[in-house]
C-alpha cells in the first residue's frame, strides 16, 4: 500500500465515522476564525454563536475552534486538521477561506462545510452571508435625520461589493431623510486596526462630520466620537453597547446563532444540504441594536417602521428609481435590485462623490 492510498483510506474512514446524511446522536462542529475571539467585533460574534450552539444542544454537540488562522496555506491545514479530528461540520468565517474550504471539501466528501460570505459551493460545501445592507438602510435613515452638519463620515474597509453595497444603502436612505446630506468616505484598507480606525474617525470629525458610520470592526471610532463630543456613531458587527446612549445611537449586530443552530441541528437530523443562505433582518441574521433615547422619538418610530417593512419583505432597500453615480439609470420606478447585481456591486449610486479606488 503506498502512502497515497493510506491517506485516502484514512480520509474515507474518518468520513465514514461521520455517517453522513443520516441521523446521528452527536455532532462535532468546528469553527475557523480569522481573528482572535477577543476582537470585540466580527470573530467575537461568530464565537458567541458557537457558544449558543453549545448551549442549545448541550451534550449532543461538541465544538472546536481555531482562532487567528491566516488565509491561505495555513487555513487549508487547519481545516484538514479539524476534518481529520472528526468534525462533522466546519464553519469557515472569512471570505479568504473560500478556496481552502472548497479544496478540503473535495477531500472529505462526508464532512459538511459552511463558508461565510463566499460564492463557491459544492455538494458538501454551503455558503452563507448576511444582508447587512438592510441594516445600513436604517442607519442611513437615522444618520440623515440626526446630522446637523449634513456631513456623514463613513469608514470603509476594502472597496469590495459588500462594503460598497452598505455605503449605497446608507446613502440612499440618508438622502431620503435629508436631501442636503453628504458622505465623506475613507478607505482604511483594514478590517481591524483600532489605531487607524481612530485616526480615520478623527479625520472625518475634524472635517465636519457629526455622524460616523463604520465598516471596520473595532470600537475605536466610537471612542473618537465620544471624545469629540456631539458626534454620533453606530455599532458594527457587535452591539458595542458600552458606548450607548452616546455616541452609539444604534447598531447592526451580526447574529449568527440562529443559522449555526439550524445547520448543526440539520446535521443531527440528517437533513443538511448544500445551499446558499443570504439572511437579513427577516431571518434574524441581521439585528438592529436598541436605538437610544438621544434619537428623537419620531425618527425612532420611522426607523423601527423601516426595519419592520424590510423584515416582512414589504420593502427592499434598493427600490427604484435609482441612478448610478454617473447619472445613468440603474433601477426604474418600483424596480428592486436583483441579488446578482448586489453581490457584484462595484459602483456608487447617484449623489455620492469620489471614485471607488481599485
Amino acid at each position, binding site marked *: 500500500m503506498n502512502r497515497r492510498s493510506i491517506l485516502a483510506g484514512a480520509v474515507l474512514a474518518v468520513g465514514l465515522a461521520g455517517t453522513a446524511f443520516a441521523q446521528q446522536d452527536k455532532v462535532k462542529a468546528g469553527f475557523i476564525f480569522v481573528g482572535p475571539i*477577543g476582537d470585540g467585533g466580527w470573530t467575537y460574534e461568530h464565537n458567541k454563536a458557537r457558544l449558543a450552539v453549545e448551549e442549545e444542544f448541550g451534550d449532543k454537540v461538541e465544538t472546536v475552534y481555531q482562532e487567528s488562522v491566516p488565509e491561505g496555506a495555513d487555513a487549508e491545514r487547519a481545516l484538514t486538521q479539524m476534518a481529520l479530528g472528526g468534525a462533522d461540520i466546519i464553519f469557515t468565517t472569512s471570505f479568504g477561506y473560500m478556496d481552502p474550504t472548497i479544496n478540503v471539501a473535495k477531500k472529505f466528501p462526508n464532512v459538511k462545510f459552511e463558508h461565510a460570505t463566499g460564492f463557491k459551493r459544492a455538494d458538501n460545501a454551503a455558503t452563507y452571508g448576511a444582508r447587512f445592507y438592510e441594516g445600513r438602510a436604517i442607519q442611513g435613515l437615522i444618520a440623515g435625520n440626526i446630522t446637523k452638519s449634513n456631513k456623514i463620515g463613513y469608514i470603509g474597509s476594502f472597496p469590495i461589493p459588500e462594503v460598497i453595497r452598505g455605503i449605497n444603502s446608507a446613502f440612499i436612505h440618508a438622502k431620503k431623510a435629508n436631501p442636503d446630506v453628504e458622505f465623506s468616505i475613507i478607505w482604511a484598507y483594514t478590517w481591524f*486596526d483600532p489605531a487607524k480606525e481612530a485616526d480615520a474617525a478623527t*479625520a472625518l470629525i475634524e472635517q465636519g462630520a457629526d455622524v460616523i458610520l463604520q465598516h471596520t470592526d473595532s470600537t*475605536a471610532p466610537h471612542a473618537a466620537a465620544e471624545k469629540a463630543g456631539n458626534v454620533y456613531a453606530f455599532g458594527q458587527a457587535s452591539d458595542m453597547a458600552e458606548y450607548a446612549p452616546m455616541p452609539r445611537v444604534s447598531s447592526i449586530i451580526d447574529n449568527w446563532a440562529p443559522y449555526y443552530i439550524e445547520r448543526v441541528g440539520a446535521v443531527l437530523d440528517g437533513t443538511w444540504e448544500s445551499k446558499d443562505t443570504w439572511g437579513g433582518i427577516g431571518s434574524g441574521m441581521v439585528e438592529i441594536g436598541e436605538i437610544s433615547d438621544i434619537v428623537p422619538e419620531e425618527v425612532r418610530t420611522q426607523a423601527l417602521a423601516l426595519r419592520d417593512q424590510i423584515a416582512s419583505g414589504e420593502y427592499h432597500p434598493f427600490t427604484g428609481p435609482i441612478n448610478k453615480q454617473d447619472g445613468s439609470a440603474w433601477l426604474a420606478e418600483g424596480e428592486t435590485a436583483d441579488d446578482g447585481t448586489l453581490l457584484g456591486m462595484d459602483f456608487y449610486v447617484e449623489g455620492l462623490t469620489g471614485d471607488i479606488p481599485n
Partner: protein
Amino acid sequence: MDLSSINPLILLASIMVASTPILLAAIGEMVCEKSGVLNLGVEGMMITGAVCGFVVAVETGSPAIGFVAAALGGAVLSLLFGILTQYLLSNQVATGLALTLFGLGLSALIGQGYVGIKAPVTADVNIPLLSDIPVIGRIVFQHDLMVYFSIALIAGVWAFLKFTRAGLVLRAVGESHDAAHALGYQVVLIRLLAIMFGGACAGLGGAYVSLIRVPQWTEGMTAGAGWIALAIVVFASWRPWRVLIGAYLFGGVTVLQLNLQAAGVAIPVEYLSMSPYLITILVLVIMSANRSRAALGAPAALGRVFHASH
C-alpha cells in the same frame, strides 16, 4: 475635492496625538541603540505595555498608575532581552525577534478578560494662559499630559546625551565597548539600564495607544507601530530632535492620507504609505555617502556582542 475642509492647525494637533506612541517608543530605542544594543523587540514591548497599562488603569481607575505600570511592564520584558543578550551573550537580532513573538503572546493572555471594557478617561490638560491663545492655543496647548511628556522626554534625552557625564559614558559604550571597559566602565550594567529605558518608553508608547488614542484593549492593537519606531531611529540618525521630526513625519503621513481621503482627494494610498521608508533609505544613503563619522550617527558597536575576556 474640497481641500478647504482640512484645517492645517487641527491637522497638526491630530498628528501630534497620532505620533506620540511611535515617538515614545523611538526615543527609548534610540537610547538603547546609542549604548550599542539593537533591540528589535520594540513591538513586543509596546504591546506588553499596552496591556499592562490598560489592565492596571481599569483595576485602579487611574490612567496615571496605568502608565507607570506600562513603563514597568515594558522594562521588565526588556530585562529578559537584556539578560539574554548581555549575560548569556545571545545574538541581538534573533533575541529581539523572539521578544516580539513572546510579547504578543503574553499580552494576549494577560488581556483575555479585558476585551470590550472601557478605560478610565484621561483628562486633557489645559495649559493656563497658553491654551487661551485664540486658535493655536486650543490646538497646540490642549492635549493630554503624555503628549507634552513625550516632547519633554526628547528634550531630556537630548540634554542627557549632550551635557551629562553619564550621557557621555553611554555614548562611549556604544562607540567602543572594549575601550569603555578598559576605562573601567561597567559596560553590561550601562547597557542593561539603556535596554530597560528603551523597554519603559516602548511600554509607555503602547499604553498611549490602549489608554488614550484608541482607548480599549484588543489583541495585537499596536499593529506594527514598534517596527515603525525602529525605522524612525534610523531616519533620525540617532539624534533626539530628529526623532521628533521623524515620528511626526511617519505619524503625519498616515493622518494626512486619511484626511486627504476624507476631503475627497483620490490618492494612491500604497505609494503614500511607502514613502516614509523610502525617505529613510535616502537619508541613510546621504548620511553614509558623506563619510565623515560625525555625519553618521550610528553607534559603532551597534549590535555587536560584548564579552569582557580578561
